[in-house]
């Protein structure tokens, strides 16, 4: 029958499309043993970060972001704070688009200390970054939720003698909540709980099979002393692929302490009205 003649080849083609092409290709090499690969988690590294965050208001819409982070890590004898690992200097100019949205653009100078006792490399190396960030806030009942997108362009160098500066891009997304515990809102005198999670992806010539640089799961307990000053402390578990081998994962436990300060450098007469951006 004519119709059968027309339909049959299509049915055959459809059936073939479900056949695994790899399997069909593998057919001739069926006897070759495939090497089984498993991911491997390195031993946990314990760290302690002391971070200061400054948002210094310089005009109605502009603010200067000034952050200094002191990051320590364990030695064989001292957990968490055995040695200094990095000193971070992050600066930027931020722009308040409206009460719930702000953007920032700036640079980072990071000082990396050589923490490997067996390394022959230099003791200290700088790392440079350009970064820009887009933050969106939204109220959820009495709490606040934040979405933060941060993109970093990064020039870094490892401590090997022959290592050169390499360029990578980082793409970071963080979701964070700040939940007031003892007050109806985030206000002076409020303790708040801030669970957060961040995914850091990377790209670059040297990034071959390790795009997931870091996944950070962190919870912080904070206290708002005044609108100008907040302190917080928390614990973070993080893991991510090593650059050299995507199947090998770093793991870290990090105690973090934060001080948030936000002075206002504007003259009194320029402060008012300070809150109506786009109402």
């Amino acid at each position, binding site marked *: 029958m004519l119709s059968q003649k027309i339909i049959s080849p299509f049915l055959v083609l459809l059936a073939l499309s479900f056949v695994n092409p790899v399997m069909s290709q593998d057919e001739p090499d069926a006897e070759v043993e495939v090497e089984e690969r498993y991911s491997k988690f390195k031993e946990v590294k314990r760290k302690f970060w002391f971070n200061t965050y400054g948002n210094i208001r310089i005009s109605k819409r502009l603010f200067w972001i000034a952050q200094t982070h002191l990051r320590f890590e364990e030695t064989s004898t001292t957990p968490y704070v055995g040695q200094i690992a990095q000193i971070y200097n992050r600066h930027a100019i931020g722009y308040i688009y409206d*009460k719930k949205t702000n953007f920032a653009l700036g640079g980072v100078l990071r000082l990396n200390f050589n923490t490997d006792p067996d390394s022959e490399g230099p003791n200290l190396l700088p790392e440079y970054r350009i970064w820009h960030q887009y933050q969106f806030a939204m109220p959820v009942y009495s709490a606040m939720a934040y979405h933060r997108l941060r993109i970093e362009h990064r020039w870094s160098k490892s401590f090997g003698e022959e290592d050169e500066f390499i360029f990578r891009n980082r793409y970071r997304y963080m979701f964070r909540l700040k939940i007031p515990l003892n007050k109806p809102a985030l206000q002076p005198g409020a303790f708040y709980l801030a669970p957060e999670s961040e995914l850091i992806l990377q790209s670059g010539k040297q990034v071959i099979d390790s795009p997931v640089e870091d996944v950070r799961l962190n919870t912080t307990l904070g206290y708002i002393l005044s609108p100008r000053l907040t302190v917080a402390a928390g614990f973070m578990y993080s893991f991510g692929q090593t650059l050299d081998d995507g199947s090998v994962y770093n793991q870290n436990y990090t105690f973090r302490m934060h001080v948030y300060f936000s002075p206002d450098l504007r003259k009194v007469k320029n402060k008012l009205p300070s809150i109506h951006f786009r109402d």
Partner: protein
Amino acid sequence: MEKLPSKSGSFRLPFFILKTKRFWCAWFLTLFSSLCPAQQIYEGHYEVDDFSGTATYTYTLKEGDTLKNGPFSFQHSSQENLDPIEIKGQFKNNIPVGLWEYTRGNYIPHEEKEFVDFSYVTKLDGVKESIKGNYLEGVPDSIWTIEVDSIRGSKLAANQFKSAITYKQGIPQLSFTIETAKNLLAGRLLRNGYAHDTWTLFTKDGIDELENWVFDNAVLKEVRIRINDSVNKEIAFDLEGVEDVELIDLDENYLTIMEFALQDRDTTHVFDHGLSSLLKENAAHQHQVEHTMAGLGAAVKMASMKVQVPRYDLSREEEKNLDAIAEHYQKSQSITNTVLSDTRLILKKLTDQEVALYYNAAEDIQQRYLKELGKLLRYREDKVVRYIERDVLIKGLWPSGLPPRVVVSKDTSGREIPYPIQTDLTYSSEADNLQEVEKMANFVQTVLSEIQDKLGLSPDASKSQNDFNSTEEELVTQATQLKTHIDSIATIQRDDIKKTLLALQENTDQQLQQYALTAQDSVEAKGRKARELNTCFTQKRELVDLLIQIPDQQQKLKEEYTEEVYVIFTATIMDEQVKKRIINAYKEQILPYLLKQVQEGLSCSEIQAWITTYEAVQDRLYQLRKEDTGRLERKLKREDDPREVLKLLGITQ
């Protein structure tokens, strides 16, 4: 009216006029009006509910009686009064018909006037109450609404109370609502006005059910009260087994009856708040309309939702007991009024131990015995007593038994001492029948008569104080008013203000005591001192009024020194206290220092100066908010002497 001269008159009506329609119309109208009673208009002074005003209405005279017919309006308002009343409606043969509107207000004028369109206008704050609905041949018919609104700056600020009840031929029926700013009550009535089904009190957002009252054919079966999200309190009622039941109106008396019936099962006083308070307020407004209409000679019934209650008729014996209690009570009340309002005694009790003993004993009797006896008699007047079992009634009025047969007095220094009772009359504290209450009332009257005799007062003694100095009388009245005022407001104040007020009260007692001592010296000194104290008490009253404003003023000041700050870290607005050192210096040093001065006792001459200083501090603080105060704040940091702090602020005391 055109007059038609008779045939014998000086001129005749032309014949062709008889043929015109106009002539016959005029003729019929003349005939009709001469047969009907004449309608007359009244416009002038009129009194309603003890308020005088002006009324306009039309009326007819029929057999010597005035029958209101047609529109009626009454107004009680003038430039001076701030409680205007307006009533508008219609009568037909003295029976209210059609739409009626009752509006009342109670306002306080602003202190400052505003200049508007070339005239000075005083704005008002207060409450406006308006009730409206239709009457059909003297009974409410249609939807009747009651609204109470708060007025701020002469504008409608918020609705405080609103009820809407449908009447048909005088009987409330269908579903009704009563709402306040926070809650909403929805209930249902049968065609005969019986309370029926579940009545629910919601929060205003309609989410939470706070109370449910379940009625079945006018019988309240169950009350469910929400304690919290997961706990409800359920109270069941039962009329089964009760021999006599009666239908009564659902008003405050019904709620009193239910409260008594419930008291030994539940201590939360279900019928004192919540859904009850809405029903009570509604009934109070309805009674007001009934009262007003009775005053206009047209009795109406508004509060007529029906509920069923058990009835326990009073026996002849019990009626007799109540009659006797009423008689003892009236006599006792008359004696205590005479004693406690006698200004001579008020002064004398401060220095004379004997007078103190009798006077303070009378005061104790009034507090411990007469108050509750008065309540019992009011319940009788309201016809509530017959619906409450007598033992339950007595237990409700005196939960821990009748007051013991002891009278506590005080000496001149305010120390408690027992009053030596002379009469042998006794009663049992544990009894729960009216017979014992009567015995107690008799005992009370006898003790009061003893006191009256000892004080040498005749029943109308207060009227025969011819030699009594009017300045002195005014002085005692002023002091009593001041002390009562402080008593009524002190308890709700925060601690530092309360302490200051009570110190002022004590100081007033001391001043009166000193005066009573001076009064024994010479008439001249007495008169001078009385005048001084008069002025002093006036200033003290001013000081008391100022003191109770301090927390509010402090709050306003705090708000003045508060700024809203946008915090980028949280993307929220937070309040920030600015110039903290100034506001703290006021809170922690100046204000306690100033209050301490009052607590330690200001002399009469110092009161005005104190008020001036306090006001100067307030003004200065408002000024400083706008000034550059960096230097001052640094100096304040080092200063902890309040006098120096005042100097730094530029205030001299």
